[in-house]
Every structure is written in C-alpha cells, then in structure tokens.
C-alpha cells in the first residue's frame, strides 16, 4: 500500500472494555417461521414416515434425485417417475463434531456424514460428480473409525425410529449405521 503500511484506521476493544460498554444491547429476536416443505419434499417426508426413502427421476436426462425435487435443475423440465431406493449406500465423507450449533463445546461428540445412496437405474456414468445422497448422523462407528478413514466407503443403511415415533421428518431416521455383512 502507498503509505508503506503505517497505522490504519480502526479502534478495537478488549473483552473488559466490551463488558463496560454503555452502548451494549442484548436482544433476542422473536421471529418464528412455519416453512412449507413444498411439492417434492412433502412426498419425501411422507415416505420417511412410512420407512421409505423416495427419489424422483428426470425423464429427459435420467438423473435420480434423492432428496427429490419437482424439477430437473439441468433440463429445467418437470421430474417424472418416483422411485424408492433401499436407503443403503456408502459413506462419502464423515467427521466428528465437538461443538454445538452455537459453538458451545458438546459433552458427547457427534459423528456426521454424507451418504452416497445406491439407486438402481442410476449409472452415474454421465457425471461422476453427482449422486443421490443424504446428509445425516452416523452411529455404530467410533471416533477412531472416522479419524483413521475406515468409515469412508463403508456400506451403511438407515436406522429407523419405531413407526409410532415418526413424524415425517429427516429425524425419522435416527442415523445411518453400518450394514453387517
């Protein structure tokens, strides 16, 4: 920079100064929302309540979308045929979270994964970049399994909540667990 990097504008506060600041405003926004799940996701959620993972196929390009969409993003055409996938798939990537949504340290770490789902009729030959898949928690594996990389590529399936506890949400699947072979 032209001034050779002499002092730049800006003044910052210490933690102590911050607490003593007369202008500090504590405020919790009281905003509530009721989201619509929409055309494709509603059917997907209904399927979860019945213990099924539903996807949808584009009649033009053959892509299978899980979770489903009403339209093909590539062809910009309405999607067609509904398909049920088994829910089995393989772990694309997995991590261990030690922090909460608000960055607090959690007592018990959680294992999070992206699962690439097997979808019959979806060859993936067109573009290895895309696949039907879900983002969820992983159970029945240890932190060590994640850190050594043993989980990547591991064959997994959904662990469903009992039917009476299902509410039509992604949480109707408790987690994905290893398929015992």
């Amino acid at each position, binding site marked *: 920079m032209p001034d050779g*990097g002499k002092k730049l504008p800006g*003044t910052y506060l210490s933690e102590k100064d911050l607490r003593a600041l007369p202008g500090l405003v504590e405020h919790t926004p009281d905003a509530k929302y009721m989201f619509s799940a929409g055309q494709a996701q509603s059917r997907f959620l209904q399927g979860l309540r019945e213990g099924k993972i539903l996807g949808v196929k584009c009649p033009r390009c053959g892509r299978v979308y899980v979770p489903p969409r009403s339209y093909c993003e590539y062809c910009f055409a309405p999607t067609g045929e509904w398909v049920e996938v088994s829910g089995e798939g393989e772990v694309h990537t997995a991590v261990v*979270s030690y922090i909460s949504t608000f960055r607090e340290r959690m007592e018990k770490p959680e294992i999070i994964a992206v699962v690439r789902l097997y979808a019959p009729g979806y060859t993936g030959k067109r573009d290895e970049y895309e696949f039907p898949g879900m983002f969820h928690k992983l159970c029945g594996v240890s932190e060590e399994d994640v850190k050594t990389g043993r989980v990547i590529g591991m064959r997994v399936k959904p662990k469903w909540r009992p039917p009476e506890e299902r509410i039509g949400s*992604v949480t109707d699947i408790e987690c994905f667990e290893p398929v015992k072979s």
Partner: protein
Amino acid sequence: MVSRPNIHVKSKVAVVGAGITLFRRRMLETPRELAWEAARQALDSAGLTLRDIDCVVIGSAPDAFDGVHMKGEYLADGSGGLFKPTVRVYVGGGTGVFVPIAAWWHVASGLCRTVLAVAEEKMSHARPHPQGVFAYIWDPVLERPLGPNLLWIFALEMRRYMHKCNVSKETIALVSVKNKRNALDHPAAQAAANITVEDVLNSEVLVWPVNRLDVSPVSDGAAALVLASENEARRVTDSPVWIEGVGWTLDNTHWYNRELGYPRYVQYAARMAYKMAGIERPWRDIDFAEPYDPFDYKELHHIEGLMLARPCEAPKLLEEGWFDRSGELPTSPSGGLLGVGNPIAAAGLMKAAELFWQLRYEAGARQVKKPVHRGVAQAWGDLMQAGTVVVMGN
C-alpha cells in the same frame, strides 16, 4: 479454451485506488464508520474526491452479522452512495470478489466512468457467537432438524479432500503456517503469527479434522477500491491496474449430492474469467494468486479449482514451497483470511486490493519476489455454491 473475449465491453476498466481498515474482533467503529474509513482512503490513494465518483457498489454478507436490516441502504451514506446510482451485491462469502465484478460491469457497460466499490463486515456483534447466525443458511426442512453447525460442511469437505487426494492434516496445516507468516507484513492483520504445524495440530479440535488454527478468525473491517474507465484511468494515474477478466457462477445448494473433493463452482467462474482475459494456461500465465482461504484446506481446493494446479496436485506443490511468497506461484502473499482476518465481504475485497498493490509494486514487505504482470483473486460463498473470480494485470 478460445482466446476470444466472451463479453463485449464499451471500455476497459482499471483499478486506480484502494483502501483498508484494521481487521480486528470488536471494533469500536460502527459499520458505517468502517465503510467510510476504507472508502475515504481509497479515494485519497486515487487522488480523487467523492465528487469525481459516478456510481457506488457496496458489498456485505448476511444482514444478520451486523445485526441491522438491509445493509446496502444502511451503509450507503458511509460508502459515499447518497444521490448516486448505488447498489449492494451479496453472494455470501463470495461477496468480496463479487464487489469488483459488479463495479467492473458498471464501467465496462459505459454506464459509469468511475465507481467506488466498498465492502464491510462486522461479525463480532452477534451473541453468543456469529456461528449462531449461520443456523439460518441451512435448508429449513432437510437440514436444520439435524442441528448443524456451519463448520460441519467444511469439515466434511476437508475430510473428503484428504481422502480423495490422500493428503495429511500436517500438509494442510502448512497453508495456515504460510498465510499467518505472510500476514506478519500486513498492517491490517489480525491473526498474523509465526506458528508451526504442531501448533495447528495441537489447537482445539472443533469438528475433526478441523482444529481452531485451521480456521480464520471472527473479524470486523472494511476495504474499498476505486474503478475507472480507460480514459479516466489514464487521466488520474500512470500506473492503472487493468481488470482483464471476471467470472462468477452459482452451483446448487444440494451439497450432499455431489463430489466434495473438487470445487466445481470455482472452475466454472475461473473459466469465464480466463476466457475474457485470453488466458489459456492459467498455471503458466498467472504470476501470483489470492485464492479464498477461510480454512487452510480451502486454499488448496481453490488453487485446483482455479486450474493453477491439477486436481490433487496442490498439496505436493505446497510442500515444495511453490506457493511461498518467494516461490514459483505465490498464493495469498497478503496473508489471506487465515492471517489478515475474515470480515467476510471485506476479506474478499482485501484479496482483490492485494492484486492492485502487488501489481503496482506497492505491497512493501509483502511484495512477491518475482516480477508480476498478472494475478487472480477468488472468493467462494454459501453451501459450496458461489464462485467469484477476478483477473488483473499491469
């Protein structure tokens, strides 16, 4: 690739001034004051006053960070935008490099002769932690019920990249070591330090494989550029820095439906920018780069997306010192987000400003060792989604 411009422009566009505030957590200045400090400095460095400016472009990431509604309107007066055609642009973390892109099209189209481009972010307002603000970027139906933290997706992506390219955490940590060291020479820097790979590995594990020192800090700050048409630029300076190419794209938000080991969103944006700049071999024709580095692995990921290395090749080149300030292709000579800090939109614009200072040989102790003719800056935003790229030359 064809070396024919893909966009028809009325005028070449130059950067003729740049300004920046300190990057720090908990700045006393309001967002508007920060914007004004950076804008005033950019005008001074161009030898212009606000009267010389035709249009204003403002960039700021989610309203939720500053905690005020409609930040474009809010920041307009501090950014010099009153009674001028003024607009705010926003593509999440990609915003900082989208600001010079939007400013470029204002001038290239012939609409404005001069544009003041300002980016501001104040993340430290949010309580208890700005991470909470990120809760609202997730899909409300499919993702939010799982109680996600934003770091999850980056950790998932980093883990995938490590697996796909067989890279160790030790190698990835070298990016943090390099960038924090480079930042020792940046007067705005918040997180400059001489650290070791062990320091990174021994820092708090947030979401394995991500440790505290793999991540850029929470920051406040602002940056600004002045852009001008060819005629205006030649009138005000002997050393204009030309914007040779711009590119931007969005991928979808269905990040769990795609290979996370390669940033497609960057590659598409980079192709557009290189085509406009007539660059056919970026790894040879680009002298230095400011790839977006909010996380250390992201710099490697983005170097590959920018086609400055082949897929999975960046870690090896990093180990060989290729990306050092004295290396073959210096990356983040500024110190990047890991070292200078990450007031989101301002951090991206800081990278574009670094191209300007490097290409004018005004970067002082940060000046890269080899002669520079052409640099590229890039930012990325939202759910592995937005890619923004700008190529500049002297």
